[in-house]
């Protein structure tokens, strides 16, 4: 059995791109669990998509052995946390599994919004925080300034903060020694009933659900009957073990202080929700660990197979994805324009994009996605309140007393020169100014209440472009507030296209309607006839564009050498048609259904 005094459970928190995964790789490399040759570029981010985007989506965990300068061997459990605001709850559960956190700060960029958000989150969990200054190899690195920033803004002592370059493997030993010296060992009670925190779970076709957990008290081994305290699911343990890099290493038991996995005959990750407490069914603990909540989707959209015949494949793919992602929700819906599909719920826009890309890549499905929507609360005149996630389901205006929309509190960190343009942006997006703090002379933290439906369109892109990439952004749900909302319908060739409808604030409806029509005009190819595109609120048309009729589409030359090329061209033209949606007698390209997302591009 491993002495708790030799265990260190920690995670790494950082702003995106400050080098979290690279440092994790270095730590694994330096502890000798893997040779340099075996190291993939980024060991922890093992989903293809994560690697490409450089964002960690699912928590990854690794157990490593470090022989410290004091001659002792220490077990490190490094719990890698998701790096995006959409996955905040998962981050908080990962933090709850640790005693300490390494806070990485980029030596050139200094503190960013997510540095702060993640650091406060770690402090909320009473973690010991170990600041590390990374990227000191950059020409623009200014470690002294960044150290001062950390002391001033967060109030952490930086005297012993390692100055490293994870990329070049510089001073990684310092980090390892600091982990041993600064991060407290766990202090669970071995004799108490088994109590562990689920911080992740995944579905494996052979083993069923694999629960990732941190044991706080007691012990668990093969044959123990376990119970999930929130969901009530019970099962007998088949195997327990710890995490090698990218592999599972079975062991006899997990004891207090350890981080590891449990497999039991569980078929669905819905039974093993992140944040739930696992205990011994026969000898349960008195109280579950604090902080469990069921995460609910914030953003919804319709997903339809581009080829209607692939509907069963889409069900199958969504079900498989859900096995590993309890926060993904979906239910069938139908659209006149798009046929059979699903209304899917996501934690945020990034989550949506990730699912969409995984469907396309891993399941080879061509997906049409409708404009994202939030959950609106619609109070009807008869006193009933309904939640609307699909604009098409909005009751007739005469039945609506009023509507409420979700509001988030956002923190935007930006260099002072861009404060003006970011404030303008927030204003345009109906933001309510809460305040501004100067973190130092050149940087400010802006606080706004913003309607979530203004963020899910292209807020991130707008933020980046208006601050030349310097602004960073974090938000949390605030609640629902009444709002003057209207449903904007789009008519193509006089026919309403349900999948293009969206809900928008009355004040911006005209502007959005106009932009939507302009955008659709560029997306819809010319037909043999003229196509009016109209935006309407109820029966009132508020904007109109026209796609002119196609009058000339001829290839003048077609001689011996042109025939193959010409045929390919015609085939492309025909293929393009196949991927279009027929609405009335108009063929609409699939990307047009996403147009609403890109209205601010100019």
């Amino acid at each position: 059995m491993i002495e708790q005094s030799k265990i260190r459970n920690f995670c790494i928190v950082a702003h995106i791109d400050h080098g979290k995964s690279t440092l994790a790789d270095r730590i694994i490399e330096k502890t000798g669990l893997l040779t340099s040759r075996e190291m993939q570029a980024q060991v922890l981010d093992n989903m293809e998509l994560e690697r490409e985007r450089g964002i960690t989506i699912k928590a990854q965990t690794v157990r490593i052995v470090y022989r410290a300068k004091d001659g002792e061997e220490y077990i490190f459990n490094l719990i890698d946390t998701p790096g995006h605001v959409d996955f905040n709850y998962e981050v908080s559960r990962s933090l709850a599994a640790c005693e300490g956190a390494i806070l990485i700060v980029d030596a050139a960029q200094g503190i960013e919004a997510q540095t702060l958000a993640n650091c406060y989150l770690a402090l909320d969990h009473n973690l010991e925080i170990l600041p590390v200054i990374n990227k000191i190899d950059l020409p623009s690195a200014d470690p002294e300034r960044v150290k001062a920033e950390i002391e001033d803004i967060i109030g952490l002592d930086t005297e012993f903060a390692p100055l490293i370059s994870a990329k070049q493997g510089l001073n990684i030993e310092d980090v390892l020694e600091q982990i041993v010296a600064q991060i407290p060992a766990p202090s669970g009670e071995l004799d108490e009933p088994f109590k562990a925190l689920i911080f992740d779970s995944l579905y494996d076709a052979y083993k069923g659900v694999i629960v990732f957990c941190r044991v706080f008290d007691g012990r668990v081994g093969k044959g123990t009957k376990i119970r999930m305290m929130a969901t009530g699911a019970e099962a007998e343990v088949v195997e327990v073990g710890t995490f090698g890099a990218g592999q599972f290493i079975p062991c006899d038991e997990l004891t207090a202080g350890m981080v590891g996995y449990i497999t039991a005959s569980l078929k669905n990750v819905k039974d093993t929700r992140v944040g739930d407490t696992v205990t011994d069914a026969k000898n349960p603990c008195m109280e579950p660990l604090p902080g469990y909540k069921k995460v609910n989707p914030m953003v919804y959209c319709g997903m339809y197979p581009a080829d209607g015949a692939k509907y069963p494949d889409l069900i199958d793919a969504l079900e498989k994805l859900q096995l590993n992602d309890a926060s993904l929700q979906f239910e069938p819906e139908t659209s006149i324009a798009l046929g059979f599909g699903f209304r899917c719920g996501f934690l945020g826009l990034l989550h949506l994009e990730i699912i969409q890309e995984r469907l396309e890549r891993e399941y080879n499905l061509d997906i049409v996605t409708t404009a994202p929507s939030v959950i609106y609360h619609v109070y009807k005149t008869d006193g009933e309140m309904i939640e609307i996630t699909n604009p098409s389901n909005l009751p007739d205006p005469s039945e609506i007393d009023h509507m409420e929309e979700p509001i988030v509190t956002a923190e935007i960190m930006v260099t002072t020169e861009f404060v003006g343009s970011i404030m303008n942006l927030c204003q345009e997006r109906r933001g309510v100014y809460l305040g501004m703090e100067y973190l130092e002379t050149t940087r400010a933290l802006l606080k706004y209440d913003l309607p979530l439906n203004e963020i899910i369109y292209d807020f991130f892109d707008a933020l980046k472009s208006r601050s030349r990439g310097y602004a960073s952004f974090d938000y949390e749900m605030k609640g629902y507030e009444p709002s003057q909302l209207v449903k904007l319908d789009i008519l193509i060739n006089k026919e309403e296209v349900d999948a293009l409808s969206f809900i928008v604030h009355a004040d911006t409806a005209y502007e959005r309607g106009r932009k939507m029509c302009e955008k659709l005009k560029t997306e819809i190819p010319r037909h043999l006839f003229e196509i009016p595109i109209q935006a309407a609120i109820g029966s009132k048309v508020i904007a109109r564009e026209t796609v002119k009729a196609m009058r000339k589409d001829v290839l003048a030359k077609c001689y011996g050498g042109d025939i193959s090329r010409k045929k390919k061209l015609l085939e492309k033209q025909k293929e393009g048609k196949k991927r279009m949606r027929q609405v009335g007698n108009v063929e609409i390209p699939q990307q047009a259904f996403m147009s609403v997302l890109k209205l601010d591009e100019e």
Partner: protein
Amino acid sequence: MHGAMKKSLGIYIHIPFCIKKCAYCDFLSMPATLEVQKEYVEALIREIESYKTDAKYYEVQTIYFGGGTPSILEAGHIEHILNAIYDVFQVQNKELLEITLEVNPGTVTMEKWMSYKMFGINRISMGLQSTDNDELQVLGRIHTYEEFLNSFKMAREVGFYNINVDVMSALPGQTLENYKKSLENVVNLSPEHISSYSLIVEEGTRFWEDYREGGKMFHLLPDEETERKMYLLTKEVLEKSGYSRYEISNYAKNGMESKHNSSYWTGVPYIGIGVGASSYLDNQRYQNKRDIKQYILYAGFREKRICDIEVLSKEDMISEFMFLGLRRMCGVSKKEFFKRFQISMEEVYGDLLRELAEQKLLIYEDEKIYLTDYGIDVSNYVFSKFLL
């Protein structure tokens, strides 16, 4: 083989050399020394000889020297190539054999004209493009209108009575008036055949940078409406002057249609000799490699010379028969369709034909189908429907 019915065949010879590449040209062409030209002609002859086995099943109906600029070659080279063809292939009666040579005005002396005539060349295609010298300069042509006139006159004097002249519309800065003038000038010369093309700004040409959509000179191109007027004007002016349109871009006086080009649209097999040249033989489409050094090295070895082989399925052949055939104003014959494919056009395309007829894109008669003027205007749309 004596007595057996031989199949018709067209031969295209590609001469990739130019004095200067035109700004709009996306054909394979390059400048070359006399030395390289000689090596290249020798390679052409090796390629012709490599067809010895196939040759016995075919009778050559048409020969076409295209480019590039075939007229850049020393006249003797043309003779050598023709002799190589006569050695390897059986050709039909010399009276009926059509031999076309593309000529760039400004590259041909009287002596050369006389040689061409002597070798049996009986059709000339001249790339004039415009009678406006400013436009010619923008296009990067090496000749003026006056030089063209001089060339044309020589051709007539030597006795060429089947001449095509190419004209182009939708040129940078071109007005409808300018274009009309060009057309009328050409018509006044009374060539037997006129090809008219709208400028297409292709990627990889000098024009691309400036005149593609979004390019800094794009605005100088005639707008959509003007371009369309030019296109309609072409038909109007030429038909009034006794030319009939027999294909989307081709007009001819009665009986003077290009046999060689027509064979592309009617599914007659052809072999392309030369670098990058395309062939259609034994239901396969293939191309020679586009690298001239490689071509010269491997001209005699089919396997090493060609690339991009496409074996046509019956569906491919049917689709091609339709979209190539419909380029011709006479359309496609239902009888011919059945004869080739042992299935009726009605059975394959019945619903589509009715749909297109209803949209006034095509005329659906008992014996044949053909495009309406509107159908020609949007022919890519119509053709794409015929792909199986």
